[in-house]
C-alpha cells in the first residue's frame, strides 16, 4: 500500500510535469510569469518542509541559500562561461556544502535557538556580500550574457520544482519516511532503535539547502542582476514561512496551495500599493489564528467527506 500510493503520487507529479512542460505553448506570457514564480516559491516551500517536516527544525535561513545560489550561478557563468545547467548543479553543491559546513554549529541548537541561528547565518552572509567588494559589494553583479528566454527558464524552474516535489514524495512515501518521522517525533527513542539522528538531520538539511540554492540560481538568472539586499533579504525566509503556514504545516498540498496563495495575493494586492503590506499582515494573522492547519486544513474541515489525513511531508 505504501509503495503503491507513493508510486501513484510520483505518477501524478510526472503527469503534472509533462502537462506543464507544454505550458509555454498555451499559457501566455503572464500565465508563464506567474507559473514561474509559483514554481520557484513551491521549490522553496517544499525544501523548507523537507527540513521542518522531516526533522522539526524551523529555519529562517532560506534567504541565505537563495543568495548563495544566485551568487554562485552568476559567478560561474560570468567568470568561466559555464552553461546554465552546470552552473545550477554547482549551486546545489555549494548549497549542500554550506549546509554541511554550518551544521556542526547549527545542530547544537534546539528549537527556537536553531531558528535564531539560521536567521543570524543569513544576515552574516548578507553582510559579507555587502562588504566584500570582490562579490560586487552593495552594487551586486550583472549576468554578462543574456539569460535564456522565459519559456526556457520556466522549464528550469519546472524541473527544479519537480525534483523538490519528488524529494518530498521520496521522504514521505518511502522507507526513509519512517526514519525521518522517527527522528522528528522522538530523537532519543529513534536513536535507541539504531537511527542516527545527526546524520539524518544533516541529510535533510543538505538536500533542502541544495534545492533552495538551485532555485536561487534560477531566480537570479531570470533577474539578470543581483545584489545582496534582494537576494539575501529576509523576505525570502519570511515568504517561505508564510507559504507553509498559509498552506498548512505538514500537509502534502500545503506548499503548493501556499505558494499559489502568496503569489496570487501579491498580484492582487500590488494594485493597491498604499496598504498592501498591511493587508497581507492582517491576512496572515487571521489565518494563523483561525486556520491553524492552513488553507488546506481549513478546506478539509469544511468538506467532511474529504478524508482527513495528516501527511508527514
Amino acid at each position: 500500500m505504501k509503495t503503491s500510493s507513493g508510486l501513484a503520487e510520483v505518477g501524478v507529479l510526472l503527469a503534472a510535469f509533462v502537462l506543464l512542460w507544454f505550458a509555454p505553448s498555451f499559457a501566455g506570457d503572464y500565465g508563464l510569469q506567474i507559473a514561474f514564480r509559483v514554481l520557484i516559491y513551491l521549490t522553496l516551500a517544499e525544501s523548507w518542509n523537507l527540513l521542518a517536516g522531516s526533522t522539526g527544525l524551523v529555519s529562517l535561513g532560506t534567504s541565505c541559500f537563495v543568495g548563495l545560489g544566485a551568487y554562485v550561478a552568476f559567478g560561474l557563468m560570468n567568470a568561466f562561461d559555464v552553461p546554465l545547467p552546470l552552473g545550477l548543479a554547482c549551486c546545489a553543491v555549494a548549497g549542500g556544502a554550506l549546509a554541511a559546513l554550518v551544521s556542526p554549529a547549527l545542530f547544537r541548537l534546539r528549537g527556537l535557538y536553531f531558528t535564531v541561528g539560521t536567521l543570524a547565518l543569513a544576515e552574516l552572509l548578507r553582510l559579507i556580500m555587502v562588504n566584500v567588494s570582490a562579490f560586487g559589494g552593495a552594487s551586486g553583479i550583472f549576468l554578462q550574457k543574456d539569460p535564456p528566454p522565459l519559456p526556457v527558464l520556466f522549464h528550469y524552474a519546472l524541473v527544479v520544482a519537480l525534483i523538490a516535489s519528488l524529494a518530498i514524495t521520496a521522504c514521505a512515501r518511502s522507507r526513509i519516511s519512517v526514519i525521518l518521522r522517527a527522528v522528528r517525533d522522538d530523537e532519543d527513542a529513534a536513536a535507541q532503535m539504531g537511527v542516527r539522528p545527526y546524520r539524518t538531520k544533516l541529510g535533510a538539511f543538505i538536500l533542502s539547502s541544495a534545492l533552495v540554492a538551485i532555485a536561487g540560481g534560477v531566480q537570479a538568472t531570470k533577474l539578470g542582476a543581483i545584489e545582496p539586499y534582494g537576494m539575501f533579504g529576509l523576505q525570502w525566509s519570511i515568504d517561505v514561512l508564510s507559504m507553509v503556514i498559509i498552506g498548512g504545516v505538514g500537509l502534502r498540498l500545503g506548499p503548493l496551495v501556499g505558494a499559489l496563495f502568496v503569489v496570487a495575493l501579491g498580484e492582487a494586492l500590488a494594485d493597491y500599493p498604499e496598504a498592501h503590506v498591511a493587508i497581507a499582515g492582517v491576512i496572515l494573522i487571521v489565518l494563523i489564528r483561525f486556520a491553524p492547519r492552513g488553507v488546506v486544513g481549513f478546506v478539509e474541515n469544511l468538506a467532511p467527506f474529504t478524508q482527513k489525513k495528516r501527511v508527514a511531508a
Partner: protein
Amino acid sequence: MNASGAPLLEASGLVKRYGGLVAINEVDLELHPGTITGVIGPNGAGKSTLIGLIGGAIPATQGSIRLNGRDISRLAASERARAGIGRTYQIPRPFLDMTVEENLEVAQYSIAPFINATLAREERDALLARTGLSDAARLPARALPLLRRKRLEVARALALKPRIVLLDEVGAGLVDSEITELITLIRSVADPNTAIVIVEHVLRVVRECCSRSIVLNFGTKLIEGPTAEVFANDEVAAVYLGTGGDRELGAASGTSTEAEAEASVHLESPAAERRVMSPLIATRSESSGGAPLLELKGICASYGQARVLKGIDLTIREGEAIAILGANGAGKTTLARTISGAIAPTSGVLRIAGEDVAGQPPHRIAELGIAHCMEGRRIFPTLSVKENLLIAARNASASACQERLDSVYDLFPVLAERKDHSGTSMSGGQQQMLAIGRALMARPRLVIFDEISLGLAPVVMDKLYEALMVLKQAGMTLIVIEQDVDRALALADHAYVLEHGVFGLSGKPREIAADPRLRHIYIGTAD
C-alpha cells in the same frame, strides 16, 4: 559465536552523577547469553538510570561497558542499538503518529536500509504475532492502550535483533492477567544467544522470569544472586516495600543520614507544633453552608489522546486526611493535577466548597485554598529557597508572609539555613521539604501531597510523615498520593486505590491494608 562462560556484556565501575547527586555508584554487571536478569529496588534507586547507561541514552560519568569484548562506553545510543542493544522505555515512547507496523520499520530500516520488502514484512509479522499485536499492525500507536504500547516497546526492541534486551518496568501499571501475558511474552523472547535485563517493580515478573536478580538502593548494588535467595532476604523486602526498614540503609548510601534528617525537620510536642503551624493553616470557613471542601463527581480526564481518569467520585470534608494509592500509571498524578486545575477535566463536576470550578485555570483554584505539592518537587532553580517559599504566599501582607516563613522554618530548620541559596542546590530530601513548605505558604484549606517520598531515604520519609501528621492534627485537610502504602495508610482517615482510572478499592485504612487485592495491585503476589 560466543565462547561459553564469557559474558556477553560486561559493565564495570559504572558511575553517574548529576551535579552533586549520585544516581549510580560503582555498579558492576555481567550478562551472559541465555540469561534473564532482574533488577529491583525502590523508586529512585537508579534502575532506569542503569538501563540508560547501558543503552547509551545517558553518558556515564565513569566506568566502562564492553559488549562481546568490544568497548562501547563511548558509543552513541544509535551505535549501541546497531551493535545489538535493544531497550524499552518505562513510559512507552512509541512514535504516536505512526502505525504499529511503521514503528517496527524504524528499527528494521535503520539497521538494514535495503532489506528485501517481503522479508521485512515477514519479520514484522512474526514479531507482531509474538507480541500479540497482529491485529493492531495498521493502527496508529496512539490508539493503543498502555499494555499494548508496552508490547510495542518490546516488539520494537526485538526488531533490532538484539543480543541484549533491556526491559524497563514493562509490568508497571498492568493488572494481574496482563502480567501473566507479559511473563509469557518475556519467556518467549528468551533464547540461548540473548541476554535479557528486566527492571521491574512487579516482583512477580522478576520471580517468574529471572534466574538471577540484583537489588539496587541509592544507586549502589545492595545484593546480587539467584532470584529466590534475593527475594528471601529480609533486608531486601524491607527496602523494597519501604515498611519501617533498616535505617542504616540510608546511612550506607552516603546521601542522607539520620543526623541530617534530624537537623532538617524539627518537631516538638504536637501541641507546641499546632501553635507554631497556625499561620499556615486556613481557618475553617462556616460560610460554605456545609458543602464539602472538595467534591468530584464523574471526573474524566485525558492526557493528549489517552483517557486517564474514567469517572472519579470523591468527597472530602474539612479536616479529613485521605490517601490515594495505586500503581505507576494508574492515574494518581493526573487526578492531583485535575484537582489543582493543571488539567481541565473532559467531563464531570469539580466543586470546591460548593463552587463549580471545572475548567478554571490553576491560579483560580489556588486562590480558593487548594495547594498542590507537585510530584517531582518542581522547585524553581532560578529562585532562592526563600523566594520559592514566598511565591506561594499570594496576596499576603509582608507581616503575614514573615509569620508563615517563620512557621515553615520552624518546621524545617534547614530551609532557614539555606534560605538564600538556589532552591535546587539542596539535596533531594531538602528539596522535598521546600516543596512541602512552599505548598503550606499559601495557607491552604487543602493540600495535595503527590509522591513526596519518591527517592528519599526511609529516615527522611519518616520525618516528613511526622510533619504531615502534625499538620493533620492541627486541622489541615490532606490528600496524600503515595506508592509507599504503609506510611500513607498510617496517616489517612480514608483510603482509595486507583486502578485504570477508577477507584478499584476504598475504605478505612485498616481494611485496605488488610485487603489482599492491595498487595496484588502492588506486588502481584496475591495468587
